[in-house]
């Protein structure tokens, strides 16, 4: 409308451990020695002290190990929403929102099976979309 040509379709993951594409998934740094998994940039392994890492793709399914339904949040964050800790099938734990579920303790339950989903979390001035991930219930 204002004559700005937007570069449609360009996307960037909100964090570098989210891999986009046809099959979005999370990836972790894996210690070559003890197989410990990390999402952050590493200097060495906190478990064994080794200094070399590979990367490992994590499953997109898992179970809710813990959650909290947030009613008072940081400014600008819509409430209520569900923060959760998900144990991924085959290894790795991650924190993310639970979506597509009523944010109340009758509908969100410990141990519920969930799957990874992605959504647009923001758009910058160049039209690039920040893609975030969440988990939603699966049958």
């Amino acid at each position: 409308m204002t004559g700005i040509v937007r570069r449609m379709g360009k996307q960037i993951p909100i964090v570098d451990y989210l891999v986009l594409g046809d099959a979005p998934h999370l990836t972790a740094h894996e210690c070559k020695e003890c197989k410990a998994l990390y999402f952050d940039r590493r200097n060495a392994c906190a478990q064994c002290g080794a200094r070399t890492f590979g990367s490992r793709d994590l499953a997109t399914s898992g179970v809710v190990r813990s959650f909290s339904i947030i009613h008072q949040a940081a400014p600008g964050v819509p409430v209520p929403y569900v923060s959760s800790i998900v144990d991924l099938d085959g290894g790795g734990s991650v924190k993310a929102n639970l979506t597509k579920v009523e944010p109340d303790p009758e509908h969100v339950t410990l141990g519920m099976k969930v799957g990874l989903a992605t959504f647009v979390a923001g758009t910058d001035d160049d039209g690039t979309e920040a893609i975030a991930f969440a988990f939603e219930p699966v049958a």
Partner: protein
Amino acid sequence: MAESVWVLGASMTKIARYPDKDVIDLASEAALNALDDGGVAMRDMQVMGMGNMFQAMAGLGQSVQQQIGQTGIPVYNVVSACATGAVAVRTVFLSIMAGEADMGIAIGAEQMGKMGLLGPGGSAKSEKNVYEPSGRYGSVIGAEGILGTTLMPGVFAQAGMEYAYEHDGVGFDQFAKVAEKNHAHSVLNPLAQYQKAFSFEEIKEARMIAYPNTLPMCCPSGDGAAAVVLVSDSKLKTLSKEQQRRAVKIGASVLTSDPYAERAQVQPDVNTLTRNAAKIAYEKAGIGPDELDLVELHDCFATAELLHYDNLGLCEPGGAGAFIDSGAPWRDGKTPVNVSGGLLSKGHPIGMTGAAGVFEITTQLRGEAGDRQIEGAKVGMAHVIGLGSSCAIHILEKAAA
């Protein structure tokens, strides 16, 4: 090297909001009262441990000395989140054990005002015009509320719900009962920020902050300071009979940090480091949890207290829900927990808390706790956790000097 270290003097301000004072006033007031309580003066101190979180860049220990006595002694300004005050106590303890000092003062002080929700996600990162990955996670925007929460109410709610996932008989009701107890206890403590009891129903129906923690299940922010004067056993023997009679022995002073746990990459593990600290503390003091007459533990949120019943061995393994259901941690129960009102109601000025716990146990073991006195208390524990994480445990004993 000292054989053992004793608390000679102890003091804390009432926890409140003090807009007309600064943190130097609060720390100085606690320090001077602790010196008076111990019957000693700044010129007798050979070391100072100063704990403070939010003004830690300022060299607060030196500022306090500029108000109450500059004697040129070593000052350790320490920061360790919510464990800060206890680390200050332990710093002085170590100096005495090492033989560098035979008397010293530890202070924990904080002025928070109304800070609101605490945590790394508390200040929203402003969105950049053009997304560029930055930091250790290659983030392009602030993730608070998008990838879960890092704010304290949600983090400690998740810690509690993880325990509920792993153990039967734990849920919203058990967490609410913790808050019911601590608010009831605080009615007897004139130093508490709040002295108001709430019914179980009022707590459950209060405004939800982060399920399962409602407002009265979250500690308030506040201002205050606590101080303790520590002395070596050999020095104590040279002091008056009355000073010796009121002195309380430190049976154990322990500090741990969190060992590696994979899941702790995304959710702090407040359990393992507490279990490790408790094991060491019981060994050093030569006692078991059954011998504790009272415990002050880190109830920053109601969910947190429940975990620590289990972590500190106060209940059967996995039995924290049954423990609160039985009434065991009430002041007339098997192991009174947080008879001061705890962080939930006594208050939680971050850098003060660890020293305030040592003050409370000292006062109880001296039999000077007034209306909230646990009759005949001889052994007590003060436990704190600072996320990041640190756990400090002090076991104090009433003993003949």
